[in-house]
């Protein structure tokens, strides 16, 4: 618009860096590099996917050979050589022990995460809790099993499912604390300010604005911890004992779990036992998958309700 009032316009306007066309010289080499990078990315993905697909495929193929409703519900055989019998007690044990551990670790861990992110700030105590929780993450699961064995089992003089739950909860706790803290950190500060500016108190702001916003992430993180705990063998070896019959009571009597059955049967020289190990492995994957799917659905429904999306 003002170009007309500028008389001495340069005769040939030149763009600052020459032509916008691709420099011919570099084209071939650049294309080669680009192509090579793309191929490498695809290869990397395939390499990462191979073990995952192979594992699921192999376990499913072997597991389905013995998998049936009877297999899931009947009691363990008395002999590893027996082709009869199922893994019923182990399914029961895995469910009660993992649920018990989850009920202990997740609420405590989420509260811990809330404390660290919302209240502790940069205080020394907060830093200490954070540090200890990091150390706890690195403790090998077998050590956790031994710890509960000496600390709890030897004291109450009984191996129970609850002792196993305790060991698994100790493993899950730092993971849940960590993910909760990280997810709470992602909640925009403006939302907290908006709530507080309306005269809301901090506790209420956390309950009604901060937690609902962070809930999907906290659930995802907790699920990872639950899934890992459900597959743990070492913490259960000394803590839950062994049983041939299903024991729904977490607090009394010995128990067993799928992971322990896999461990025992896979070590066995007898083919029926090895098949049962695969069946148990398949069942474990299935349980974790179903639990994850359920938790996700619950989170989506809950978040929708809270955020009012229709």
């Amino acid at each position, binding site marked *: 618009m003002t170009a007309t009032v500028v008389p001495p316009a340069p005769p040939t306007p030149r763009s600052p860096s020459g032509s916008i066309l691709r420099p011919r010289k570099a084209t071939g080499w650049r294309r080669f590099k680009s192509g090579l990078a793309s191929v490498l990315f695809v290869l990397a993905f395939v390499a990462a996917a191979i073990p995952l697909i192979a594992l699921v495929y192999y376990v499913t193929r072997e597991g389905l050979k013995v998998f049936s409703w009877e297999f899931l519900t009947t009691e363990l055989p008395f002999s590893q050589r027996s082709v009869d019998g199922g893994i019923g007690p182990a399914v029961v044990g895995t469910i009660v022990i993992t649920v018990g551990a989850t009920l202990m670790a997740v609420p405590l861990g989420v509260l811990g995460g809330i404390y660290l992110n919302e209240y502790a*700030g*940069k205080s020394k105590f907060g830093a200490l809790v954070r540090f200890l929780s990091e150390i706890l993450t690195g403790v090998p699961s077998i050590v956790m099993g031994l710890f509960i064995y000496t600390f709890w089992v030897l004291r109450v003089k009984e191996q129970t499912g609850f002792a196993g739950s305790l060991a698994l909860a100790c493993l899950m706790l730092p993971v849940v604390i960590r993910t909760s803290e990280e997810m709470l950190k992602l909640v*925009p500060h*403006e*939302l*907290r*300010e*908006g*709530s*507080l*500016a*309306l*005269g*809301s*108190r901090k506790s*209420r702001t956390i309950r*009604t*604005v901060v937690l*609902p*916003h962070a809930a999907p992430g906290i659930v995802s993180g907790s699920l990872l911890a639950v899934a890992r705990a459900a597959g743990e063998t070492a913490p259960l070896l000394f803590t839950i004992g062994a049983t041939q019959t299903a024991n729904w009571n977490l607090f009394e009597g010995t128990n067993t779990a799928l992971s322990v059955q896999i461990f025992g049967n896979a070590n066995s020289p007898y083919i029926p036992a090895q098949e049962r190990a695969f069946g148990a492995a398949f069942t474990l994957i299935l349980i974790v998958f179903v639990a994850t799917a359920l938790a996700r659905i619950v989170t989506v429904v809950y978040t929708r309700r*809270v*955020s*009012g*999306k*229709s």
Partner: protein
Amino acid sequence: MTTEPPMTTTLTPDTTIDGVATLPPTEVDQPPAAESEVPEQEREVVFRLSEVEVFYGAARAVTGVDLDIARNEITAFIGPSGCGKTTVIRSLNRMHDLTPGARVMGTITYHGENLYSGKVDPAEVRRRIGMVFQKPNPFPKSIYDNIAYGPRINGTRKRSQLDDIVEHALTRAALWGEVKDKLKSSALGLSGGQAQRLCIARALAVDPDVLLMDEPCSALDPIATARIEDLMHELKDNLTIVIVTHNMQQAARVSDRTAFYTAEPDEEGRRVGKLVEYDVTETIFTKPGDPRTEGYITGRFG
């Protein structure tokens, strides 16, 4: 506002508030502000700030703020970035309590009561002194639940009562017509201008005495801005409004009084915000008493 405060003070508009009665080391280098010619009229003081300084950790963000904010007026804070205007407005409803390391020195009274006294309940303060932020911050909830959030905190549970409050607040914020058919849908689906009006409605729903607005229009287009400015004029009859704005035309359009802040290096060379001039808006924009104000409003600086 429930009780009439005991020591409500009034002052006449020609009381000069030249705003740099600062700590001893700070140089007071300012001519007295121009006498305003607004007819004498009793102004009921809502906020009285004297020698207010705000620190973030060891860093002084703003210093030497002395001003009175009167009831049913719109007071605008203008000035370049980093001059402390946002810091000052956030000190009026104790938002600094939430910032680790932030400290407010000097005295701020609200209807004669010391806002920073240990006996004051910050949640109650924020209930009476609402705030609208620069970036619209609707909660990830439905439109209805956003507005009902404040009343619910105050213990309003009855559905019919909440319905009335929501409708009234949205109507006051000029949003009712646009959202009345989708109260149950997420507030996150609103446009920027609508979201900001929702935030205003949310603040109004708790029936505040004061509304603090921290650059409420900086993310909005001119049409949405105009609507919010109209809204401020309507709200002024029942509310005291303080607005921070980067937009001088906006300050000139909406406010009754304007405070101009600037940032200047202190004796150690760190930039510290300070209040330069506070007067009737017309005076600030037509015959400012300080060359720095004039420089800023004429665009030579800032």
